[in-house]
């Protein structure tokens, strides 16, 4: 069974802290994504990566960075957490070839609260 695993289900951090969200997929997918999901706004793409060490900005990259040192792992970093980064963070992956980009496999999400 395919799996995208996010390291934490709930996370509470203080303003100004550096926060790491980890995501691991076991499907050997090339593409990995970080989204945030907010009520009324839907899913918004923060960053994505189509290969190891490659990354591209999404629609809302400000205040975030990412790291992809291994194919199966994609990390989202909040350099200095702020209260407006309180959100549900969803990691996703997808493969190349006949599995097109629209078929995203999502993790269960990390609900981050920044106090």
């Amino acid at each position, binding site marked *: 069974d395919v799996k995208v695993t996010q390291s934490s289900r709930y996370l509470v951090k203080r303003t100004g802290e550096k926060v790491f969200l980890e995501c691991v997929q076991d499907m050997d997918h090339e593409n990995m994504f970080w989204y945030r999901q907010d009520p009324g706004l839907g899913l*918004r793409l923060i960053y994505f990566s189509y290969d190891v060490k490659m990354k591209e900005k999404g629609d809302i990259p400000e205040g975030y960075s990412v790291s992809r040192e291994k194919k199966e792992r994609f990390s989202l970093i909040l350099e200095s957490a702020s209260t407006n980064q309180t959100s549900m963070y*969803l990691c996703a992956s997808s493969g190349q070839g006949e599995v097109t980009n629209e078929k995203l496999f999502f993790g269960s999400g990390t609900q981050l609260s920044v106090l």
Partner: protein
Amino acid sequence: QKEVEQDPGPLSVPEGAIVSLNCTYSNSAFQYFMWYRQYSRKGPELLMYTYSSGNKEDGRFTAQVDKSSKYISLFIRDSQPSDSATYLCATAVGRNDYKLSFGAGTTVTVRA
């Protein structure tokens, strides 16, 4: 203005009813249209995928796309309590378009 607008809901229907979910979009370049289903405390999962205008049926689910009016619909026939979830529409320009545009989601509750 968001690229994809989705009827906000929530919707509450009795078991067996037809559920109708709708989205509109603004970018005429969108060619790929998807519906994702998200259960509570879970990530979204792909439910339906269509290319260009037309209908696609999969069991009790029918996805419709009308590109002339930029309208996307999902119909659920004979709805079941297990269909209770949030449904998200999504669009993409091309097959290798990494940036999907998502609607905000409609939460559906099917009452037994």
